[in-house]
């Protein structure tokens, strides 16, 4: 490693460094790592805060939206003063304030078929913090085609789920969920609600998976969908397998280039979404 930690960094990261499985080498690895967080909202907020605090050297943030007052109940990276500000700007300010060691790259745009492979290309790990299924399938397909490990997560009401994908080695999101549900078949958080702290827990689990992946530690949630209900407070690990019929990572893939599924969904319903 060419990096050496300064005295201040040794103090800042001391609780990592004393962990036998992390140590100075692990911390240097984190400082040299790059994570892309797509969606600076309910999941991306806690995930990015902990990744910045942990000293992940480069964080990319992708989001096209502005902060809305209804976000503040769970998107803890944004403050009341940030209403109306671009989410990536608001989030980047907080991340830099938490840890000046971190280089934050702001992408004020929506991840789409035309740009996502370029977006993910430079990163070691991708965190899916998006709110819609078109984006979730796009991120999955791009990470499979681009061979990037990533963390999928979803939240709704009092439920959360999480899965880590190592392309080519473990089941992908499409292996399990096949294709996006038709519009309106599944309620969104804005329609059905979500307990704010559920987003925090699940986003922190995504950050934990990212850090473990970067450090090569422990067992990832690969081939496993973690399903959590906050009311019963039960976490279940559901085993999932690679699907030989998967359209993107199966034996005869039909998805070999990316396209925006939104168009296809419009075609089926005949209505713009």
């Amino acid at each position, binding site marked *: 490693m060419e990096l050496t930690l300064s005295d201040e960094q040794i103090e800042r990261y001391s609780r990592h460094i004393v962990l036998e499985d992390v140590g100075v080498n692990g911390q240097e690895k984190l400082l040299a790592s790059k994570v892309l967080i797509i969606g600076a909202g309910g999941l991306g907020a806690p995930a990015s805060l902990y990744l910045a605090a942990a000293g992940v050297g480069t964080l990319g943030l992708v989001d096209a939206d502005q902060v809305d007052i209804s*976000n503040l109940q769970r998107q803890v990276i944004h403050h009341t003063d940030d209403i109306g500000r671009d989410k990536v700007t608001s989030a980047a300010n907080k991340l830099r304030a938490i840890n000046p060691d971190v280089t934050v790259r702001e992408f004020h745009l929506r991840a789409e078929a035309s740009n996502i492979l370029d977006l993910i290309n430079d990163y070691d790990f991708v965190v899916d913090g*998006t*709110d819609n299924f078109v984006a979730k399938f796009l991120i999955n397909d791009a990470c499979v085609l681009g061979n990037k490990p990533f963390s999928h997560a979803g939240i709704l009401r009092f439920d*959360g*789920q999480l899965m880590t994908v190592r392309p080519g080695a473990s089941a992908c999101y499409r292996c*399990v969920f096949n294709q996006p*549900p038709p519009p309106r078949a599944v309620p969104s*958080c804005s329609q059905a609600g979500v307990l704010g702290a559920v987003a925090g827990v699940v986003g922190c689990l995504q950050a934990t998976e990212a850090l473990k992946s970067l450090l090569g530690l422990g067992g990832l949630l690969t081939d496993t969908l973690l399903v959590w209900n906050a009311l019963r407070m039960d976490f279940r690990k*559901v085993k999932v397998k690679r699907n030989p019929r998967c359209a993107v990572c199966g034996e005869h893939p039909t998805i070999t280039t990316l396209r925006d599924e939104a168009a296809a969904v419009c075609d089926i319903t005949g209505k713009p979404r």
Partner: protein
Amino acid sequence: MKLIVNGTDVQVSDGINVGQLLFKRKVRLPDMVSVELNETVLQRAEFETTPLHEGDRVELLYFMGGGCGTHAV
């Protein structure tokens, strides 16, 4: 017969298929779930033609969006 649905023992009529189980569980839109039967994910078109057997392990996995939340689909 006994099935294990999402980790819990459930008694159902003998010989029902996956589609009938979804109806019984009040899943009215099969598009809302992904069904794993004994660790293999089924295609949605197979729900009505896939019989269930004593001791089968069924996971009903739900789509969950969440995350940013300003422009949810």
